[in-house]
């Protein structure tokens, strides 16, 4: 077991010997960090960020966490570069509230973007300190020192040298950052920009990686939770005798019900067999058409963007097009169900879990347990990929409640039906668009409004934002947020109005799923652009370029067209694919977005084959061009973009959560299928545009946002059928084909 599990930061520093320093980030404004403003002064000491060990290794204390995207490697490269130290000897400690600085939530593809600069600054600062120490000890001036791979040499006499370990191994820096440390010129980079192999993959491929699922605590018990059978059900009583022969102990608090047993399979069996009496809420009729229902919810409208006079522009337009787009509830669908361990004893708690926000979870857990936040430690430990707010935080609260009740360490691993059933879902949405065209077919007016719930209900210090918190009487407390991500388009029109309409009601608990609302909003925007291009008989690539001024945006659109050998003649208009005779129609579509209208640029071209007889859609090729500024690790970015394309394809083709008034009814992989090997395109090509003169922005979400639109546009190109709702399951596509080509028409 990781020895850190039992040690506090203080003990770690004493045992390992370490460095420290703190102070507001030199050269960085608070706006450029995810660290809460009020905490900036806490981390002014350099020792808050990194330590030089006696063994010559460097330990980095990182408030951002690894979600499987490879940031451990990328952040190590950033530190290695500034510190002139080998990546292989850097150890990254992430997300442990007893050890690391608070760098906010690990979300929104902001780890490299917002967390990287803080580590870069600390590393530069540490290097300057080490160079100064070397100069003193070797009797030269600091500018006579060069540092290579963690060894400080006298430039003119390289036999005179000292390693970092000799200079400061096991000692603290004991100084605040000076703001004077010079950052390395990007032109001099030798580590950042290289495809350094991921530091975590060998252990993951060998089966020896320390996931939270593998943490074992002495004397720990296994716990499972039993959720109410319907939203709003109240616990009347449990029959403890029903699981007595299994040796399980039943824990209840409010409406929270769990079981604890020495053996895991006994806990599983007990959760299944426990007899519980619930008082069910009155059955509420749920509209079978969720999008119709969304329109009936009380809502509030917020403006996102406006220019020109939309009210005047529409009446003057020669032609007005309108379309509505519908998207379903979707799930994160982590392959490893959420898992957490808790040891709550003697008024303090330690939690091991894969949360995206350790510091926000501390307060939430403390309030649920009724203990002081400074008695709670969240020792973040990597979990399975989450792609947003899955059950990680909830499982942590489950484990904490069970451990507190039995006074022993408890491990809770959610079952598959727990994860599918109770992880928060990416919400269903409606997007209504209208555009006015002048007599030459130019867009002169653009109007967008969506209908959405919030896209974030993360704990963020609020116990009621966790299932365990709600079941023990805490009310949810969150802002309506993130429904407007990529509601606006990068295209420039004379008159534009972009609004979002938030509702508080939701049949399922909504929260952040990769890209948040950007995937849905981009589906609508980029499908509609395609509809407008088709209506004006324009080539979809040229049409987009004619409204894009930003050179970086234009570059990714042009690059993907080149990469895919886009043929303007072939792709323009509908039904360029075969429309006569063949059962299988083929076509291609393009879509573009700049993530959040200010971060990574991504353009995607997709080729599809559509079986006209049964509506089956196969994605045969995918192409992407991507610009995330300065690339820290090209293979890491490529891996992310490939993953965005495949996961984006899976969401567009297959994924839709089924539910009724009791909650989610898609409770396993048969009910919620995702893309499998047989669905993966034969060709996936990615072109990365490196911009060393531009700041690095995240690469974890941008490329997934255009995928549904690109596929929908390709289906239109192949068949003439416009799909304004995904997933593009064969029944839906078949219906669209029938409606597009009524009986008797050419098919």
């Amino acid at each position, binding site marked *: 077991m990781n020895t850190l599990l039992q040690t506090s930061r203080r003990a770690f520093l004493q045992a390992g010997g370490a460095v420290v320093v703190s102070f507001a980030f030199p050269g960085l404004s608070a706006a450029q960090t995810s660290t809460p403003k009020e905490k900036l002064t806490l981390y002014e000491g350099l020792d808050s960020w990194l330590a030089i060990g006696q063994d010559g290794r460097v330990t980095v204390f990182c408030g951002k966490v690894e979600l499987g995207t490879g940031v451990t490697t990328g952040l190590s490269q950033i530190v290695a570069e500034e510190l002139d130290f080998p990546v292989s000897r850097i150890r990254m400690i992430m997300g442990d509230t007893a050890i690391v600085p608070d760098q906010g939530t690990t979300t929104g593809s902001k780890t490299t973007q917002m967390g990287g600069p803080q580590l870069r600054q600390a590393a530069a600062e540490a290097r300057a300190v080490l160079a100064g120490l070397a100069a003193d000890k070797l009797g030269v001036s600091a500018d006579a020192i060069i540092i290579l791979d963690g060894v400080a040499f006298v430039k003119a006499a390289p036999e005179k040298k000292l390693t970092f370990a000799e200079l400061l191994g096991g000692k603290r820096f004991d100084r605040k950052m000076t703001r004077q440390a010079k950052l390395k010129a990007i032109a001099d980079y030798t580590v950042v920009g290289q495809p350094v192999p991921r530091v975590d993959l060998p252990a993951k491929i060998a089966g020896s990686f320390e996931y939270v699922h593998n943490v074992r605590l002495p004397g720990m018990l296994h716990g499972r939770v039993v959720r109410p059978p319907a939203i709003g059900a109240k616990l009347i009583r449990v029959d403890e005798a029903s699981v007595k022969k299994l040796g399980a102990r039943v824990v209840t608090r409010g409406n929270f019900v769990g079981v604890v047993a020495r053996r895991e399979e006994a806990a599983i069996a007990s959760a299944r067999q426990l007899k519980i009496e619930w008082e069910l809420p009155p059955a509420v009729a749920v509209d079978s058409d969720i999008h119709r229902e969304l329109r009936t919810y009380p809502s509030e409208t917020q403006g996102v963007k406006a220019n020109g006079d939309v009210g005047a522009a529409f009446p003057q337009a020669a032609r007005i097009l309108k379309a509505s787009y519908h998207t379903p509830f979707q799930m994160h669908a982590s392959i490893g169900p959420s898992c957490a361990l808790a040891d709550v004893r003697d008024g303090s708690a330690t939690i091991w879990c894969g949360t995206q926000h350790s510091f926000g979870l501390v307060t939430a857990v403390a309030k649920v347990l009724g203990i002081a936040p400074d008695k709670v430690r969240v020792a973040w430990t990597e979990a399975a*990929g989450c792609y947003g707010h899955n059950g990680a935080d909830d499982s942590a609260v489950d484990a904490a409640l069970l451990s507190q009740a039995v006074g022993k360490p408890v491990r809770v691993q959610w079952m598959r039906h727990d994860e599918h059933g109770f992880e928060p879902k990416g919400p269903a949405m409606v997007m209504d668009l209208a555009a006015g065209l002048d007599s030459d077919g130019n867009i002169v007016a653009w109007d967008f409004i969506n209908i959405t719930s919030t896209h974030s209900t993360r704990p963020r210090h609020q116990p009621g934002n966790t299932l365990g918190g709600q079941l023990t009487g805490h009310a949810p407390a969150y802002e309506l947020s993130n429904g407007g991500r990529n509601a606006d388009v990068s295209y420039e029109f004379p008159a534009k109005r972009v609004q979002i309409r938030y509702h508080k009601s939701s049949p399922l608990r909504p929260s952040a799923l990769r890209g948040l609302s950007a995937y849905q909003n981009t589906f609508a925007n980029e499908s509609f652009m395609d509809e407008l291009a088709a209506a004006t008989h324009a080539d979809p690539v040229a049409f987009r370029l004619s409204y894009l001024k930003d050179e970086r945006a234009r570059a990714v659109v042009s690059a993907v067209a080149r990469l895919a050998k886009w043929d303007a003649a072939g792709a323009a208009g509908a039904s360029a694919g075969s429309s006569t005779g063949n059962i299988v129609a083929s076509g291609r579509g393009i879509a573009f977005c700049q993530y959040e209208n200010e971060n990574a640029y991504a353009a995607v071209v997709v080729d599809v084959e559509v079986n006209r007889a049964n509506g089956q859609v196969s994605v045969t090729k995918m192409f992407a061009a991507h610009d995330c500024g300065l690339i820290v690790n090209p293979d890491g970015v490529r891996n992310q973009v490939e993953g965005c394309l495949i996961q984006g394809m899976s969401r567009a083709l297959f994924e839709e959560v089924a539910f009724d008034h009791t909650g989610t009814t898609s409770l396993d992989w048969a009910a919620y299928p995702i893309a499998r090997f047989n669905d993966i395109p034969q060709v996936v090509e990615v072109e990365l545009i490196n911009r060393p003169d531009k700041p690095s922005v995240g690469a974890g979400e941008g490329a997934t946002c255009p995928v549904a639109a690109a596929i929908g546009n390709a289906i239109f190109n192949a068949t003439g059928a416009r799909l304004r709702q995904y997933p593009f399951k064969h029944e839906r596509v078949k219906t669209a084909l029938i409606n597009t080509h009524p009986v008797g028409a050419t098919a």
Partner: protein
Amino acid sequence: MKLTLNVNARKQAVEIAPETPLLYALRNDLKFNGPKFGCGLAQCGACTVHIDGKAVRACVAPVSAVVGKKITTIEGLGSADKPHPVQAAFIAEQAGQCGYCLNGMVMAATALLKENSNPSDTEIRAALNGNLCRCGSHLRILRAVKRAAKAMHGGAV
């Protein structure tokens, strides 16, 4: 009930109910970390081990059914320092993101290559189709299996 399991060529006794899925014996009694709990329904493949060389879902195989058989976990193939050729190929292709599915991918691929030393793209896809990956590492995994096939043929890759 006391049962003896032959795991990675080592016999070990466990005190366990005979119907218990093998996965819990491996993870909790014998402390193996490679096989993962993913669904408990034999739907995702994260728990895959080899029983007498064949890929089997440990989350549904009763422990009593594998007594006397050769059980191999991913730890029995190789280690991070001394990887099996399939593991080495996965590392070379950087085939993975979160890595939670990789136990199953490596075990399914290794079992495939034992049966078919030079599988086609279609055969690899078919063999891995029951193993789910959510990160979208499929393309890299396919390349890794092809690389492993080549390497195990004796050719340099």
